[in-house]
């Protein structure tokens, strides 16, 4: 794999047809831990400086766009390599997108291959995004890692103020023959009515009831944008409510001084209530109590994953996200994101500052601060805070 990355790095600069982007990060970080269920080893410390060894992280993004055989072709490939002090390097190679596009008529386009489609209007949450590729939940901090697309055939018709899309998706595996799994059909009707975008979406999938969804976005006045999404699915499980639903409502406002503020609230009927969360924690206390050492640690990690704590999926029924960012002042920008769980009033606060120097270099300082009472979602997280300081190089 490492050879593939090195090969990619070496040939990319020679490809005139490709859009080549290279990102490099050098960062150091430090953490503070607290004794919780997710920290069975009880390694409890206050923040003691930059304790983690420096990490060098290189990513090469290649986008090829070319026309041939009256088709447009596109490929997005990512190669990444990470070198941490005291550890060897780790590398990865991903084909994020590889598809061809054919303009069938002046108003209709066919896409065939592995492509990334994002539907919906939300920023932090997208319940209506029925074609979104899966995110890497194991690494929610890694915002630069691009998703790998779905294998699909998509036909979209573009009218003057509307569009109609039909998208057949499947997981294709070529091993001992061609295998199609998890076949799905997604449809979207989009219409612009005055200052509002409206979309109706549906997803049909094998062995499951159809998903119905809708989204809207509109602008009110000169500063305010509002958006929302809704998703319904009839439940087949006997114990579950007859209809599961998710509702998102949010806004974006440009405040005086060009400060941008985005806020979103999401309700998920399938999410854990405060009582259900405590029951899950109690069950886990009994389980991890039977284990020792590394087993307990892996059980805690498994619990984190199962509950989707601190992930875009989330575990709980309600979340409120607030994000604010300032315009550049002497090349300095500041931003803060807050994810609040209103049920137990725990939150994670992510303040960050960037200082841009030259066209390609940005220094950044970012922190993740987990606040809440013991037993609450973010209060029970094994870290109490994490600080990162780094240099981002973009070429």
């Amino acid at each position, binding site marked *: 794999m490492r050879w593939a990355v090195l090969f990619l790095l070496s040939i990319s600069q020679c490809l005139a047809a490709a*859009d080549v*982007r290279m990102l490099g990060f050098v960062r150091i970080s430090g953490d503070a831990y607290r004794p919780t269920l997710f920290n069975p080893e009880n390694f409890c410390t206050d923040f003691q400086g930059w304790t983690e060894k420096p990490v060098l992280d290189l990513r090469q*993004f290649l986008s090829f*766009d070319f026309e041939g055989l009256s088709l*447009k072709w596109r490929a997005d490939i990512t190669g990444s390599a990470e070198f941490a002090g005291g550890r060897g390097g780790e590398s990865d190679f991903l084909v994020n997108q590889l598809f061809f*596009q054919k303009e069938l008529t*002046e*108003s209709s*386009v066919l896409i065939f291959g592995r492509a*990334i*489609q*994002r*539907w*919906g*209007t939300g*920023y932090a949450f997208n319940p209506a995004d029925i074609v979104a590729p899966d995110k890497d939940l194991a690494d929610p901090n890694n915002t630069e890692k*691009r998703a790998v697309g779905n294998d699909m055939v998509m036909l*979209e018709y*573009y*009218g*003057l*103020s509307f*569009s109609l*899309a039909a998208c057949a998706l499947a997981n294709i595996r070529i091993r001992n023959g061609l295998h199609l799994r998890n076949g799905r059909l997604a449809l979207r009707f*989009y219409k*612009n009515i*005055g*200052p509002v*975008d409206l979309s109706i979406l549906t997803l049909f999938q094998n062995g499951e009831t159809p998903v119905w969804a809708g989204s809207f*976005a*509109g*602008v*009110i*006045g*000169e*500063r*305010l*944008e509002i*958006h929302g999404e809704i998703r319904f699915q009839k439940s087949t499980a006997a114990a579950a409510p007859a209809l599961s639903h998710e509702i998102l409502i949010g806004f*974006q406002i*440009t405040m005086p001084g*060009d400060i*941008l503020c985005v806020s979103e609230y999401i309700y998920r009927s399938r999410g854990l209530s405060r009582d259900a969360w405590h029951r899950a924690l109690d069950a886990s206390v009994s389980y991890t109590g039977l284990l020792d050492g590394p087993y307990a640690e892996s059980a805690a990690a498994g619990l984190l994953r199962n509950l989707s704590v601190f992930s875009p999926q989330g575990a709980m029924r309600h979340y409120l996200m607030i994000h604010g960012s300032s*315009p550049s002042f002497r090349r300095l920008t500041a931003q803060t994101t807050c994810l609040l769980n209103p049920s137990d009033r725990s939150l994670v606060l992510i303040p960050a500052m960037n200082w841009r120097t030259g*066209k390609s270099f940005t220094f950044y300082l970012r922190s993740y601060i987990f606040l809440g009472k013991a037993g609450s979602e973010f209060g029970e997280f094994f870290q109490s805070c994490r600080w990162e300081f780094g240099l981002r190089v973009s070429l």
Partner: protein
Amino acid sequence: MKKTIGLLLALVIVVVSLRGDETQGILERIDAFRIPYSDFLIQVRITSYERDKVKEEALFDSYISGDDRSLVIAREYKTRGMKILYVKENMWVHLPNTHRPIRITPIQRLMGEASNGDIARVGFGEDYDAELIEETDHDGVPCARVLLKARTESSTYARIILTVHRRDYRPLRAEFFLLSGKHFKTATYDEYSPIAGKLILTRMTIRDEVRRSRWTVLEYERIEQKSIPDRYFNKNYLVHVRDLK
């Protein structure tokens, strides 16, 4: 008596409609200095200054179609390949390496003192109603001051006071106001060049009225007749738009 009232009413209607035609005529004459063709491409170089120093520079291609549609693509910018679509009162942005366009508000700054609407919109006729408020002098030139009032709240500015040349209605200066009434920015129309047999604006400067040390210069480097297919003005097609040459 009834006849007299009828005649008076008819006279009022005629005067009002003449007045409407007259104000609409003003906008057409003003816009003629910015719109050389029905469908065209403008290449805009934007340089933003702070205390006499260049802060940022960028080059945008703006494809204009009719009165109410435009597609702006960043050619040289920190987010090269960024696209802004403007259809009627709607505005969306698509950033490179993302997979869907998002809605933006007209007031959001594109770069320096230039808002999205300053780049994406070239004419006033579609968004504003005009009213002649006074005749005056501007640097010794006989001028008229025209008040433009936004027809919808989603126009880039709520109110604009435009100073135009009294003879041909060529814009010389514009004062931009927000819904709150705040004087937000001032633009001066610095240079006109002959294009397609007409005088067309080729350079303007926008000054921030709050932070007076900042200003942004917009230079229209290339203006040519060009039309692109309708699908390029559909929000969902934005993700497929590549460099248009």
